[in-house]
């Protein structure tokens, strides 16, 4: 039941996102670009932080000592 509810909520969110995308794409293309662009900028910046911790840590482990 919980899985079904989650599925329905995510489906609803997807439908809302698609409808908003269509409306904004037609009438407010730059507003739509702002939504997408802001999401991208925030997520890339966040990924940069996570990358600094995760990726560099992996490299450290894989590199020989004294490098």
């Amino acid at each position, binding site marked *: 039941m919980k899985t079904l509810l989650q599925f329905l909520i995510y489906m609803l969110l997807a439908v809302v996102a698609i409808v908003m995308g269509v409306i904004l794409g037609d009438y407010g293309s*730059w507003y739509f670009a702002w939504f997408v662009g802001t999401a991208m900028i925030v997520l890339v910046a*966040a990924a*940069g932080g996570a990358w600094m911790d995760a990726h560099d840590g992996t490299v450290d482990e894989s590199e020989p000592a004294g490098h």
Partner: protein
Amino acid sequence: MIDSTVVELSRWQFAVTALYHYLFVPLTLGLSFFIAAVETVYVTTGKAIYREMAEFWAKLFVVNMALGIATGLTMEFEFGTNWSFYSGFVGDIFGAPLAIEGLMAFFMESTFVGLMIFGWKRLSKVQHLLVTYLVAFGTNLSALWILIANSFMQDPVGAKFNPVTMRMELDSFSSLIFSHDAQAKFVHTSIAGYVTAAIFVTGISAYYMYRNRHMAMARRSFRMAALFGVLATAGVITLGDALGFVGGQAQPSKLAAMEAMWQTEPAPAAFNVIAWPSQDQKRNLFEVQVPYVLTPLLTHTMTQEIPGVDWIEADAAKRIANGIPAVAALKVLSKDPTNVDALAQFNSHQKDLGYGFLVKRYAPDQDVEKATPADIQKAANDAVPNVFAMFWSFRVMVGLGLAMLAYFVLAVIFSVRNDVENRKWFLRLAPWMIPIPFIANEFGWLTAEIGRQPWTVYGLLPTWMSASSHSVGYMVFSLIGFVTLYTVFIVIEMTLMVKFIRKGPSSHGHGDHAPPRPALGGRAAAVAMMRKED
């Protein structure tokens, strides 16, 4: 007629308060989303350092936001006190977005900022993250509604003039909010705020790294802000191009002044890289041109002609002549709203009503029907904004924008290579970059607003008609008062910012001096330091 000195002082007062206010706004717009990005990493990785980073940057955000609100409130009152004719004329349209801004965005922003600051112990991680995103969206939605109102002044769509009520009335709300100018301007302005925040964060982080303090926070903040900034700067430049394209269609006089283009040239026109425009002589006393570049840059074609100042003035003279019967009809309708002949005359000339108003100040007894061809020519010359101010404001903004792009590209390269700490020159440069986006933002506004002159509402309402009839003494006194008060606000902001920056993050890395720096390019050593700090 309102004393021209009072009109000029009213313009100065609004310009001064807007420019002061706009020192605070962009940082608020950008820092809110940067904090959201930091907190996103905190929620996804669970690392405490990101929460401390979010709390530290949020502290600076709140100081800036509080002073931004304080300086912004007076401007809303200025519309009524200093621009009463304007407020009466377009209040039905202009008031709606301002009211929505207050009711929706401002309340949302102010409510959730409290939860963001004081809710760390009361909300779950995810709930707090949601609150932070709501603050960021609320902040930017505030800007959206203000910019929709401003865009109506630049490109008045979605409204029509009612000759019975003698006011502009809202015709289409969707046209107002989806106007091309509003869209491009909002995105350009909002993302310029992201650039401002990114330079602010990299500058302070570099300051810490140079002094070997708060290294864990500084390295992470620098990396995140560099990525945040490089993408945002690319976005600002893209949207600047879009705004030039959209604005050029709606406001050809702004475009001609911005490019110091005195004569209409056959396409493709040359681009003035630098020039020394003379408004009196209607030519550039000195210019360096790149041939064929301006037309594709502004029109995205090679064939579309760009109107020069000569065309703008000739077109304005024609429109003034056509607008005079509309103003004359309006005079009759003000006494007898049922006069059918006057209404018919008004309807056939109403598209140039604003241009008819433009000649009123030069016409004998302010009676436009008595205006001579010489009066019409004087008014037509007024239709061109200050070319020198426009040309150089625009170039300062663009030049600084390109410099910031170069800065962020270097910041990303150095940060990704874990090499930024070894670039002492870059660490020294970064804090000095902090004023650059603020200056670019101010020159952007000057370009937008000087370029709208001589109108408060482009093509509809001349600036000289829009002001209130105060005394010169009142205007001088209140101008001095605002300058003094706002200077105090700036000093308070700077003092608090410097105090909090010197203090650094509250718990983590309290004066956390890092171990000796790794050798140039020693990524493994840098990683080891990060781990030790964590």
